[in-house]
């Protein structure tokens, strides 16, 4: 009994726990370790059995049955606690008025046939649909079919009941206490989980989708007739934009900056090998050769005339002011460029 007091026993789970045992020094071999563990385990198992076999048991065909107490170790639940069902509108009303349910007999006296019949269902007692002759009353409206009225009345009553039922289910769904077998299709509520209901598409999103769909014609929806309230076709994606290549005041420099940025990136990447001696020597040699060739060509004047000469734009731009003096003030960049190139050509001619 002394040893049992040391153990913590959760009898509902048939679990025993010895919180005092420590290994003074781990056994060297695996077999010894396992043996010691099993020895200690046997003690605990014996402690559980001590209690288990002393419980009052009832004999059964298969063996003695023992009633276990509920577990004491607190373990988390699997699912949240079921919520109580909210009262229906009728139940609320009945409680306020103090109306109580009372049992009715299953069978009832059927007056037309003079027999006892079931209260509800097929072949029921006092079925108003089975009455073949409806006697006219003073209050009857002429031209109204009493049989048709009876039928529509019944239909309306059934519809009203269905509406009430759905309203009550909706109310229950709001609290989260819907019966497990019922699913509301409109909200698509999961059975047990707490997932959010899928969102409805907004008017704006629908409009966008319609715009996209409209653009699926050969003209991209450009010449289609629009319905009243329809949005213009949406253009998805970017328009490509090119910056002007020729330098000017605003955008031209932007283009230059852009390319410079890219070049800088590329050059800085290989900056550690920026000076290649072999390449430099090669280049120097090639340049020297070219110069010599050029001078050789210059000595013969006929060949130089045929060669097209290109001049860098910078020189041209410096003389563009002169060119603009006789052209319009609001001339475009391209015009200026062309004029400057002309100027350059003429200048060259002068130099000759």
């Amino acid at each position, binding site marked *: 009994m002394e040893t049992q007091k040391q153990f913590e026993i959760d009898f509902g789970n048939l679990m025993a726990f010895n919180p005092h045992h420590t290994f003074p020094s781990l056994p060297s071999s695996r077999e010894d370790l396992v043996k010691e563990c099993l020895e200690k385990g046997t003690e605990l198992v*014996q402690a559980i059995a001590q209690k288990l*076999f002393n419980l009052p048991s009832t004999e059964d065909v298969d063996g003695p049955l023992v009633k276990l107490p509920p577990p004491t170790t607190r373990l988390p639940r699997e699912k*949240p606690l079921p919520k109580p069902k909210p009262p229906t509108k009728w139940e609320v009303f009945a409680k306020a008025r103090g109306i109580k349910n009372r049992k009715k007999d299953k069978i009832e006296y059927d007056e037309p046939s003079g027999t006892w019949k079931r209260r509800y269902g097929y072949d029921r007692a006092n079925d108003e649909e089975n009455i073949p002759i409806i006697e006219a009353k003073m209050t009857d409206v002429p031209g109204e079919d009493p049989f048709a009225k009876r039928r529509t009345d019944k239909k309306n009553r059934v519809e009203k009941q269905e509406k009430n039922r759905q309203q009550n289910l909706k109310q229950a769904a709001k609290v989260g206490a819907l019966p497990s077998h019922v699913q*509301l299709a409109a909200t698509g509520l999961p*059975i047990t989980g707490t997932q959010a209901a899928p969102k409805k598409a907004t008017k704006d999103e629908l409009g966008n989708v319609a715009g996209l769909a409209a653009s699926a014609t050969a003209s991209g929806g450009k010449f289609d007739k629009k319905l009243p309230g329809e949005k213009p076709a949406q253009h998805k994606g970017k328009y490509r934009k090119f910056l002007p290549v020729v330098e000017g005041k605003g955008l031209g420099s932007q283009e230059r900056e852009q390319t410079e940025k890219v070049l800088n990136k590329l050059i800085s990447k290989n900056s550690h090998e920026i000076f290649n001696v072999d390449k430099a020597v090669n280049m120097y040699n090639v340049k020297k050769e070219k110069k010599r060739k050029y001078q050789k060509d210059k000595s013969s004047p006929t060949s130089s005339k045929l060669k097209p000469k290109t001049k860098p734009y910078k020189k041209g731009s410096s003389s563009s002011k002169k060119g603009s003096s006789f052209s319009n003030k609001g001339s475009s960049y391209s015009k200026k460029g062309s004029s400057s190139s002309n100027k350059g050509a003429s200048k060259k001619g002068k130099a000759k």
Partner: protein
Amino acid sequence: MFEVRTPRTGKARRALEKRAPKLVETGKKTLILHGTKTSGVLNAVLTEIYHMKKGSAVKFSRKNENIKPFESGGETSLEFFLNRTDCSIFVFGSHSKKRPDNLVIGRAYDHHIYDLVEIGVENFKPMESFKYDKKLAPQIGSKPLIAFIGEGFENVEELKHLKEVLLDLLRGEVIENLNLVGVDRAYVCTAISSNRVFLSHCGLRLKKSGTKVPRMELEEIGPSMDLVVRRHRLPNESLQKEAMKTTREKPKKKVKNVSKDAIEGKIGKIYMPDQKVGDVALPNIAKGVKRERREAKLKNGENKHASKKLKENST
């Protein structure tokens, strides 16, 4: 207006009712699955856990790419599987260079991950390697005894957590009545060091001791392994509070045909089916029929049993 959807068959309705939240829960189902890569050891561990938990476990055999329980976003497909199979404990095996023979045991609340423990499996010995009397082999689904040994389970936070998870995994169904003949297995968990637990599955041999209580003897039937705790994630506190809720009230079972009266006390109604006198089967009167046949034979003059008859006459 909206549509109310209800199951069309009784079977479907019962299946849904089974999955619905209950006032008193009796047990959790276990989902066993693995990641993209597993080792031979891990495969064996997962199958044997499945064998030990047969009846309340589901095992997946395909690779699962997107499951990384400890990472955010890595639990979505796991939670989906838990929802589908209606399991709330999972055992996920994965094998990598960084974490070889990795086992993640976790629990779920409301189909969302509740807590996680990651352990490495070492010194694994499968069931087949143990030799024992086959009479000791436990039955499927029998309630095990569980023994936890060692200070570590109380002092070290990780082991304390592991103990709770292991208890939840191994304890089986929560029951009210236990058949003492069915006590045939035990799990022994020993904290060897601050992060290592030795787990062994044993059979029980009940020996006579002269008293009402038999002497218990443990015999290893496997598997046995060392669990090395790696990472663990405790549950969110607010979630824990919600998950620990219990009710005092027990679910009331509807008692039919019994009512209470102020004067007469408890009244029971008994229904007897109508006695159908016309259809009552009469006792077999084969003897009389036999005699008739014999007489008929005599009349026809063919007396095969003539000698017998003669004898009767003579006496």
